[in-house]
């Protein structure tokens, strides 16, 4: 299974260095954490990896293959999936339909056979529906399959996003604050699912500003502050690092 490397990555908006000199590795079979206070540049990093933002400097590679200049859809087809910090669902579509679109890059039928309704097109849809139901059961969402996604509770919407992201079995999944706004029970359920995904060989990058959740799940944690990597290592080393404590609690004593 491939791993993801960021090599000296930077994003500058004019004179503002939103992200600068960031180097990190996301290994398969593990959950890697990326934490930092609000505005640290975490989402900018995710947007650069997923091809939404262009890099100013540096390189991003998956198994030695560069993603740095790829469009978002090309990055996705290379096996890097993501969720969004501000939930983005297809609001008019049902939960099932939202998950089905996640299988897009596994489609085999040609445009013509889709137009003519040939068996190959129907097979695609059937295959995806079966797998989508498996996912729905795994995330305990099968009772909501026919609901319009836009009407769901917040925690359920998060799950729909997650199912959609992992539907096509990506090698690398970027989770942008996946448990924000969830209660402990809900986030524990997701933590279990994240562990299972990692055990199945996926490389997970968990972006959070909730330190506790990350330290419980991750082997390797990176800490970003004001666009720079201020610490990295095991959860224990990182959370006892004075620079990290300063970044989170502040040094002026408030």
């Amino acid at each position, binding site marked *: 299974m491939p791993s993801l490397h960021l090599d000296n990555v930077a994003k500058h908006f004019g004179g503002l260095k939103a992200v600068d000199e960031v180097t990190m590795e996301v290994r398969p079979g593990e959950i890697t954490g990326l934490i930092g206070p609000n505005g640290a540049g975490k989402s900018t990093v995710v947007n650069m990896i*997923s091809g*939404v933002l262009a890099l100013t400097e540096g390189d991003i590679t998956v198994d030695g293959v560069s993603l740095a200049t790829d*469009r*978002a*859809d090309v990055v*996705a*087809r290379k096996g890097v*999936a*993501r969720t*969004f910090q501000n939930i*983005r*669902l*297809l*609001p*008019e*579509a049902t939960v099932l*339909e939202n998950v*089905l*679109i*996640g*299988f*897009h*890059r596994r*489609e085999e*039928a040609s*445009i013509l056979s*889709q*137009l*003519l*309704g040939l068996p190959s*097109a*129907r097979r*695609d*849809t059937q295959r995806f529906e079966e797998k989508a139901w498996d996912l729905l059961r795994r995330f305990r969402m099968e*009772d909501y399959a*026919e*609901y319009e996604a836009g009407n769901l509770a917040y925690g359920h919407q998060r799950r729909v996003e997650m199912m*959609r*992201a992992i539907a*096509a079995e990506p090698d690398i999944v970027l989770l942008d604050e996946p448990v924000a706004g969830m209660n402990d029970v809900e986030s524990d359920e997701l933590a279990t699912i994240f562990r299972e995904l990692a055990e199945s060989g996926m490389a997970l990058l968990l972006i959070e500003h909730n330190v506790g959740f990350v330290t419980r799940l991750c082997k390797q944690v990176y800490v970003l502050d004001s666009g720079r990597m201020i610490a990295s290592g095991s959860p224990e080393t990182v959370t006892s690092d004075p620079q990290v404590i300063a970044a989170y609690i502040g040094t002026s004593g408030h």
Partner: protein
Amino acid sequence: MMQFYLAYQPIIDFFLLSVGFGYSQQIALRAGVFSIATAGFAALGSYCVAILATKTGIPIFLTVILGTALAAAVGGVLALPLARLRGAFQAIATLAFVQIILSLLLYGEGFTGGALGIVGIPREVNTWILLAVVAVTMYVLWNIGRSGMGRVFNALRQEESVASSLGVNIGKYHIIAFILSGALGGLFGGLQSLYTFQIEPHNYGFAFIVNILTVVILGGRTTLLGPIMGALIMALLPEIARPLAENRQAVNGVILILVITFLPNGVGDEIVFWFRRRKQARQQQKRASEKEARDAVSTS
């Protein structure tokens, strides 16, 4: 039955053509492309068929195929410069495209007959042919709806960034949507010219654009039933409102405002959604009662 058919035949034919143009408009809107190029595609198809049918001896069905292919090809090419535009900008750019086509038809007098258009087009199309073509069109659109392409179109319409994060090549699918919209516009434009005996650029002007947009907005942007309901209202309204004579346009306007206000998804879409919701509610009820039964067993 026969009497009914004879009395209402022009209305039925007008209805069927409107449905066809409506689908051309709808497929673009459905994919999140705010194109109003259907009028241009219809003009291309219509003139291509009219010129070939009056000036050459090639078989009529072949002229329709060529007209469809021409409009589809132009649609595909048109998608390229418009790739970066969205929403109102897309609408204006496609409106400009229609203007270009219409002025070419006006000023290419030697070829297109200018403002007078082309007369003496053989009348080869009747209600049954229109009905058959609409049926085939619906079958293809039905297939799209159940395939990956339909899912991609729905995703593009609702949230482009999600689609691209899942590997959808937005540019490619916008090109496909334009080609399909072009093909349908050209096809029904060609049929129209083989139906009306005479065509002129004016037929595909502002009134045409507004009519077809109205069909889709009244009827619905996402379901197969949408353009049918929209076209039905547009075809029947003048008949129902006949006693109102010159106030007809005002009545049209009032109805449009009422539908947009109270049925924003369009009449056809709302009907389909209503049935869908009812089905969902029933399934929910069934699940709830099953659960109750299970709980009752486990506690006893």
